[in-house]
């Protein structure tokens, strides 16, 4: 029994770590899509910022500098997307695809150019990366049965970005539903004309939303390379940007529901790792690929309207053209 509990706790613990970049990326997507801009390029921004974070952290020896550079790189990509989809009214999906492919190519040629290696950056030592933090009071609570284990294993011992991710969600909720910016953001994604005729700048709002998304993606990417891992490796984001997109849809563009989706998907991922090669009673061995594919299957089923309806913001993917 205790074994099972410990296993569960360890899996949940891993879920926290796995879902952290999903949270950052999906919150980034939430801002973009709530403003009416579809952001397929989350993956590319994660990848690029992971690379830049690892590079900068390695060169300057500080994870914080790595983080800053990552945010900067991600924001540049966000602004390219903005230029294409807001200013020049191009196809937002095409622009997102371009960003993903660009990131994939650039990370490869830059690792070679900067570090003379194909697709990896130098391994970060010690405090060149974000290390786990032991929360106060672990020793005191530790002797309480169950609760002690939970606190020690599950809640304590993550790096700062994990805590930041979970703190980001209520903040996003507050911004979206309680502030003037949030009201305008929601309005511009539903009916940009209403925003324009209210004397507000549709383009300005959308750029702001993308910039916030850029910052969040930058943190997410940095987490992957310099907190969860200790270097950048080729294609290391491995579709997490798309899973984040799926979580965004699965959570119906609502911060807390999106968080739940991220956690679910993160849990599935952690479970897949745990179940690798394990033969379960009755069922036998579950193919890892099936568990890995579950987020995508769930999202497709949701999109098909079989479990509720996912209705995106009305103006999403449409460039705003001022006319009557």
């Amino acid at each position: 029994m205790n074994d099972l509990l410990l296993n569960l706790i360890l899996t949940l613990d891993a879920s926290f770590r796995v879902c952290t970049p999903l949270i950052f990326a999906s919150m980034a997507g939430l801002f973009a899509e709530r403003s009416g801009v579809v952001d397929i390029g989350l993956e590319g921004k994660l990848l690029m910022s992971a690379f830049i974070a690892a590079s900068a952290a390695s060169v300057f020896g500080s994870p914080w500098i790595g983080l800053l550079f990552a945010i900067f790189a991600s924001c540049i990509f966000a602004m390219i997307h903005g230029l294409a989809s807001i200013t020049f009214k191009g196809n937002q999906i095409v622009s997102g695809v371009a960003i993903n492919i660009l990131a994939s190519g650039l990370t490869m040629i830059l690792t070679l150019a900067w570090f003379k290696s194909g697709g990896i950056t130098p391994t970060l030592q010690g405090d060149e990366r974000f290390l786990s933090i032991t929360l106060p009071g672990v020793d005191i609570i530790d002797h309480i049965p169950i609760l002690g284990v939970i606190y020690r294993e599950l809640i304590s011992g993550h790096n700062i970005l994990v805590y930041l991710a979970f703190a980001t969600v209520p903040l996003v909720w507050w911004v979206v539903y309680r502030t003037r910016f949030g009201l305008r953001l929601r309005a511009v994604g539903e009916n940009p004309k209403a925003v324009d005729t209210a004397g507000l700048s549709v383009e300005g709002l959308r750029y702001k939303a993308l910039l916030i998304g850029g910052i969040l993606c930058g943190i997410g990417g940095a987490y992957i390379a310099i907190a969860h891992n200790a270097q950048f490796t080729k294609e290391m984001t491995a579709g997490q940007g798309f899973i984040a997109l799926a979580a965004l849809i699965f959570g119906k563009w609502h911060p807390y529901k999106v968080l739940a989706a991220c956690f679910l998907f993160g849990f599935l991922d952690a479970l897949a790792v745990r179940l690798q090669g394990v033969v379960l009673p009755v069922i036998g061995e579950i193919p890892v690929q099936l568990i890995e594919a579950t987020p995508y299957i769930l999202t497709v089923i949701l999109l098909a309207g079989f479990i509720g309806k996912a209705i995106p913001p009305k103006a999403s993917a449409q460039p705003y053209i001022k006319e009557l």
Partner: protein
Amino acid sequence: MDQSNIAIELTDVDKHFGAVHANDKVNLSVKTGTIHGIVGENGAGKSTLMSILYGFYQSDSGQIKVFNKKFRATSSRQSIEAGIGMVHQHFMLVDNFTVLENVILGSEGGALISESLDKARIELTRLAKEYGLEVELDVPVESLSVGMQQRVEILKGLYKGAKILILDEPTGVLTPQESDELFRIFEALKKQGVTIILITHKLREIMNITDYVSVMRAGKMVAHRQTSETNPEELAELMIGRKVLFNIKKSKAKSGKPLLIAKNLEIHNEQGMKRVSEVSFEARSGEILGIAGVTGNGQGTLLKALAGILPLSKGSIKILGETISPEITLNPAQLRNLGVAHVPEDRQKMGMIADFSASETALLGYHNDKEINQGIWLKRSSVKANCQSIMEAFDVRPTNPDLKSSSFSGGNQQKLILAREFERDPEVLIIGQPTRGVDIGAIEFIRKRIIEMRDAGKAIILISVELEEIMSLSDRIIVMCDGEITGTVDASDADEATLGMMMANALISQEKSNEAQL
């Protein structure tokens, strides 16, 4: 005139859109605290002018003064700050926002919205009392009726401190009761010193509610009148530019057997809203049946159902030997094969494809025809030759099948569509807005062709927002209001007043027709 009394003054305001001269040296002066009407036909430049005032477009030249201050808006913000509010024809509301949220958008006050909402709630309650603008504040606007949504738009303007309210065709989407209610609100606003600019093409409204009226025609401001010193006839003449627009010679109809019999139709539109109910009529060969009504009273939905685009919810249509019912549907292609031609209301969206060449636009709906297909091969040379010949028959200029559809003028596009639909010798013609946005020369041509088709023994169903068009073309007229038929008259007995009554007030006309039946 006393300068301090002027709310808006326009001097030589000019605006081009490409080759179109939308506003040609427009002058206008609106007195504070009055209701000022601006009338003109579709495309006369009224909406453009108001959009310039509301900062949506910028004028190319000319001067604008608002409350005696020089004014040039590059965004609606400046207009709002100058005290201008606008109620657009299509409402600018965020559907899933509550009334309160919609009202504060753009004028929230602080960075947090809770305070703004509280403040707005108090202010709106006051405004509602003062002007009779009661609206539930905490429901999403999408759940409100059109009339209520319009109130929200007016409240938005007032909340933002508008001293001048511009309303663009506000009654186009309203029921008669809602229109009356709106006019009552106008009076209340006027009493409080609010200036109202009413854009419309309905003369009755102008006569009933305004103090002053300005007339626009083809981008120019052609006349200013005090309403009490003018009459609908004069205004109509000013709008159109000549006394009698068209003198179409038309023999008496030789009505034959009914080719289309509609019984108890109930139809829902694309959004699933019931727009037509209990509608029955017959269309006979050799006769033009006109369907009149205020825009949005179900005529468009009816037209789409007759053309096979929308299914019936109830009732049946007997057409050329086939029967359509909720169970048995015929799609537009099947109807075309039967001999039903359809000129859609929305030329740009439905009737043509802007990016396609003329010959491909002329192929829409007929791409399965045997004459142009050989096995799997669509013979482009035949398609082109066919287009060339119908273009010649309908005098479409330039007569070039390879030209992009969008590069033709509105009139020539419409002629191309009519040519496509008329030249295949259909038996029943369903025609929507045949002359909307079409130049004068083409109007005359198109109307003649429609009458020719009638004389050739076709059954024609005609829908138009232009009452004048319905009256001059139709042999029989049915009037729709709120999705129901509110009157049927012979064209020879029809005059604008009776038709207007039927269009405007369902109850009275229903009583009338009941009496007539008794």
